[in-house]
């Protein structure tokens, strides 16, 4: 992880750590904080706790997003303070709806100049963000809204497994990782497990990102905690609830960053601090295996 971030994430980059609730690479976010990246533009549909932590860590000057919060719990204190008070430094924001963000990544991935959607009618969002623009259908059947392509310098995704070439498979919620990866200039894939190429080829329908577009594969088991990995570990909802008190106060947030990010060398140390009991408590209560499909052989 240290090498991947050092080589591929640069000051001033637009960085997208995607994953909708599921598969959020907290390990990559923490490494970016530790390496002291600055002036990043952070893009994510849901900034979640990881961008609250990264923004508290001083890595970002701008945030691109569509829903800002700790779902079912509350707010993201570091981000809110920077928006509401401009302290310790103002944070530039560029705001869309979820479909707008999905459309932006899709346009970025498909090399399109914009993406049209039937959202934003009669709302204040195009006023708050003038990059959301109304356009006429060239076929004369009405008006839609356009969003511009989003092409991150780096997209980072967490996944269940990949092979050494970066061919990446995911199951469970897919979010917009595929679109965000194809839209990016550089891609880092972080996985629970490195598998043989034959495992990938035995189930090609599950591959969402081909090694063709991947620059680095990092093996980091439990690297998504407190987010989750379908079939491997549960979302640590206790941590999401606890975050509400930590993030309310800048001093407690900085103390948390010291204890869990700055004072630790890597993810292995984080897991050690988390402890085996907490890790064990997050395993699924039982397995729920998919059936096996037959792709057939054709010679």
């Amino acid at each position, binding site marked *: 992880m240290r090498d991947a971030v050092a080589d591929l994430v640069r000051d001033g980059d637009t960085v997208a750590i995607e994953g909708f609730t599921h598969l959020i690479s907290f390990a990559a976010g923490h490494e970016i904080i530790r390496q002291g990246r600055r002036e990043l533009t952070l893009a994510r549909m849901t900034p979640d706790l990881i961008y609250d932590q990264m923004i508290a860590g001083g890595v970002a000057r701008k945030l691109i997003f569509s829903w800002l919060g700790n779902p*079912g719990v509350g707010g993201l204190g570091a981000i809110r303070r920077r928006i509401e008070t401009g302290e310790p430094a103002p944070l530039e924001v560029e705001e869309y709806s979820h479909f707008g963000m999905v459309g932006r990544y899709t346009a970025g991935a498909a090399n399109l100049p914009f993406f049209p959607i039937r959202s934003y009618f009669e*709302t204040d969002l195009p006023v708050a963000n003038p990059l959301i623009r109304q356009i006429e259908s060239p076929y004369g059947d009405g008006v839609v809204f356009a969003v511009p392509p989003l092409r991150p310098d780096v997209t980072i995704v967490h996944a269940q497994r990949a092979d050494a070439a970066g061919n990446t498979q995911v199951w469970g919620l897919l979010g917009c990782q595929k679109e965000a990866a194809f839209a990016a200039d550089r891609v880092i894939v972080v996985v629970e497990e490195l598998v043989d190429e034959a495992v990938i080829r035995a189930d090609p329908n599950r591959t969402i990102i081909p090694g063709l577009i991947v620059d680095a594969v990092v093996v980091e088991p439990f690297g998504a905690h407190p987010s989750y990995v379908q079939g491997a570990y549960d979302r640590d909802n206790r941590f999401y609830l606890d975050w509400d008190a930590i993030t309310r106060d800048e001093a407690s947030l900085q103390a948390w960053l010291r204890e869990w990010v700055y004072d630790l060398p890597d993810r292995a140390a984080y897991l050690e601090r988390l402890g085996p009991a907490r890790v064990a408590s997050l395993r699924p209560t039982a397995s729920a295996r998919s059936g096996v499909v037959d792709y057939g052989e054709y010679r």
Partner: protein
Amino acid sequence: MSEAIAPGMATPVPFSKSEMMIVAAARELAGQHVCFVGVGLPNIAVNLAQRTVAPDLELIYEAGAFGARPARLPLSIGDPTIVTGATAVVSMYELFSFYLQGGLVDVGFLGAAQIDRFGNINTTVIGPYERPKTRLPGSGGACEIAINAREVFVIMRQSARSFVETIDFRTSPGNLGGAEQAERIRREGGWLGRGPSVVVTDLGVWHFGDDGEMRLDSLHPGATLDEIRATIGWEPRIATSLATTPAPSAQELRLIREELDPLGAYTR
């Protein structure tokens, strides 16, 4: 945090205002087929509905699940329990493009921070956008749900700060400045949605009249019209035949307390 128990009702089990709100919202889903579930209170209401009045309800979670059958109430709407046993898991592109914008959603179920008499919703900021007094989560999928779902249900606690004459930011359109204007704009814009049809609060149930303004049709047991007027920023329209919402049944309360929200995360 506990809430006042509704006094003087001939019910076997006392209940809180939040529980009454969730139960009333769930009952509104009777007869509905496909529901797009918003974050927060809508989540517990639809899960209660699936276990009571609407067992065949198809739940769509914006994270990418269709036909979810959550075995536990997810704190977040991106929880692994919405995947296991679901009919389909799809990318968010497919979900918003084909399922929502393609016109397959009957009810979009939203929460709100501020609402006006015509059901226009703010979930973005309190105060000016550039330097807000309170920065709220923003749209998420709400703005496209409000435009593309056949109808919109809203669940929210009622207060003078939330039921306001003028919302600070329009995140999700309701009946705009009234039904006439809203219907014209929806027709001209080719919207699939008809806008809001019900708002369920901790005090009562509101439906929207022909002119597009919300009307209090049912008052929850224990709530009073004085309370309604003290928690609203305009002179409310009250149904001439105002009903009293039937109290939660023992079964509904058991499901909320034992199965859906044993820690009280939603009912606090």
